[in-house]
């Protein structure tokens, strides 16, 4: 779909007078490319440079002081561990929820499937602030769930609000649509005929899943996983509103360091540390995009 050479027979534009056309093309893409360079690529290198070279009286010198401070600070490390733990739990929960959902959406042919798809997509259109507010009112202390339990004569729940489970529930809720969509797209690689042929050969649903479906969507699952990790690792709004104050997740921690502690250099150091941790997933993500586009060529 998004591969550039899908157009027709893959021949370069027929009437193109290649030189003039090439310049026009470059000119047309120059504005967004410049923005991309200035506000995504440059800040990343700038951040790394800024945190590695500290200003001194004689100019700038190589220094790892902020990194030293980060890794010797028990509070900062606790924040990092909390973030890693929340990310892992969210990714596991998302796969557990979205894989069955995606399998259903891929193979269901009934009209109910449309309703399920609509419901699964809906969270994409609910901003995280409203979600945070709604979750406070629902599973917070004396929230909707407590009201129902109380009316049934049952004890109140142990509210996840302001514990790590608060952001976990919120982040899972928020990420269901995109994760499901990506898995459904991945399942598109499994043809109906392949499944029918396997059933014809006597495969039961479990065998079908293990031997036919999962092997074909392995790469898609890894992409989904990387994407989920990248988006959850630096989530801000939900951890900020729903999460614990101490230790806190990296998003709110960076924000507080930047705006309240007024230590931009430390905040940027924390950002670079998140880049480094996500680099493995990011690299995998980019590699698989590039590979997909190559394959479709």
């Amino acid at each position, binding site marked *: 779909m998004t591969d550039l050479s899908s157009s027709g027979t893959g021949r370069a534009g027929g009437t193109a007078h290649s030189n003039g056309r090439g310049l026009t093309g470059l000119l047309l893409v120059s*504005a967004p490319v410049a923005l991309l360079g200035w506000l995504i690529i440059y800040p990343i290198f700038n951040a790394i440079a800024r945190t590695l070279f500290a200003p001194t009286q004689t100019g700038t010198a190589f220094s790892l002081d902020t990194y030293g401070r980060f890794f010797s600070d028990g509070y900062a490390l606790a924040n990092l561990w909390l973030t890693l733990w929340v990310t892992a739990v969210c990714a596991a929960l998302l796969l557990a929820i979205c894989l069955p959902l995606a399998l259903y959406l891929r193979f269901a042919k009934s009209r109910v499937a449309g309703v399920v798809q609509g*419901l699964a997509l809906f969270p994409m259109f609910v901003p995280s602030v409203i979600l945070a507010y709604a979750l406070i009112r*629902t599973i917070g202390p004396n929230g909707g769930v407590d009201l129902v339990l109380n009316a049934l004569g049952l004890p109140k729940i142990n509210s996840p609000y302001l514990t790590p489970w608060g952001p976990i529930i919120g982040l899972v809720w928020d990420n269901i649509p995109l994760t499901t969509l990506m898995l459904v797209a991945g399942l598109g690689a499994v043809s109906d005929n392949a499944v029918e042929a396997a059933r014809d050969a006597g495969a039961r649903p479990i065998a079908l899943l293990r031997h036919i479906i999962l092997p074909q969507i392995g790469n898609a699952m890894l992409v989904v996983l990387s994407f989920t990790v990248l988006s959850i690792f630096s989530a801000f709004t939900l951890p900020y509103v729903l999460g614990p104050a101490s230790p806190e997740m990296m998003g709110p921690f960076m*924000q507080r360091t930047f705006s309240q502690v007024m230590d931009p250099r430390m905040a940027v150091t924390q950002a670079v540390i998140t880049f480094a941790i996500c680099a493995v997933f990011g690299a995998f993500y980019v590699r698989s995009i590039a590979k997909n586009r190559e394959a479709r060529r």
Partner: protein
Amino acid sequence: MTAIDPSTLSAEVPVHRTKRPDWLGLALALALGIVVVIPLLVVAIWAFAEVWRYPSLLPQEFGFRFWQATLARPDVWAAMSLSLRLSVTVTLLSALICLPAAYAFARMDFPGRNLLFLSFLASHAFPKFGLLVAIAGIFLNLGLISTFWGVVLIQLVGTLMMMIWIPVAAFQNVDRAMEEAARDAGAGPIRVFWSVSLPQAAPTIFAAVLLSFVGTFYETEGAWLIGAPEIRTMPVLMITYINNQIVVQYGAVLSVLLWVPSFIALMFTRRLVGSGSFAKGFGV
């Protein structure tokens, strides 16, 4: 073969009902319904509750008192108008710079095209909030922190990816022969773009523009980090209500107000979002 009189057979031929209720689907729909709808329903009830004391299952009194109170607050109106101005500015700018670029990526050949396009898709490969902090570090030196245009820039970057690859896919899906037929009929390249390529790609591009608009309207992190304390958009105001406001209903009323764009976006973009091509843009 002899013709068979159906009436002689109908008694013996077993008839099967091939449509069975989709129990699995109904169960999933119910589970999702509870998880997705209940939190929003609770908020909706709060928005119309005048008195709701624990542990009553439903509010003691319903009414519109807090709607009036919320809508009478000047900070709500200021935030609303600011958010709208921001979203319109960002979406227009984004369309202005991205649509021609998308056309170029889809139809023209120029050096570095694949690499540049890939770099747009790859901009997802960095944790977003960390990136925002890095940008904030630069904006601090440029004096863009806490300004309208600072927030515009940060949100513009957020729309770039979606406004590039969805239109690229839309333009690529336009049958090349349609454009050639227009050339054949006597239209120059620019006329072909206006009369054929753009109208053909328009529904998908419209969905992308709407998604960017709604996405910008709801964007919280950038506005909060770059805009604070001067620029207070709707979502930022909402956060302060959650943190500091004792009157629950203000937040509830605002939430219900903010659903409206969600629903509109859902209506108009579901076909695009539900299609496999949307997810493919994220690298699957």
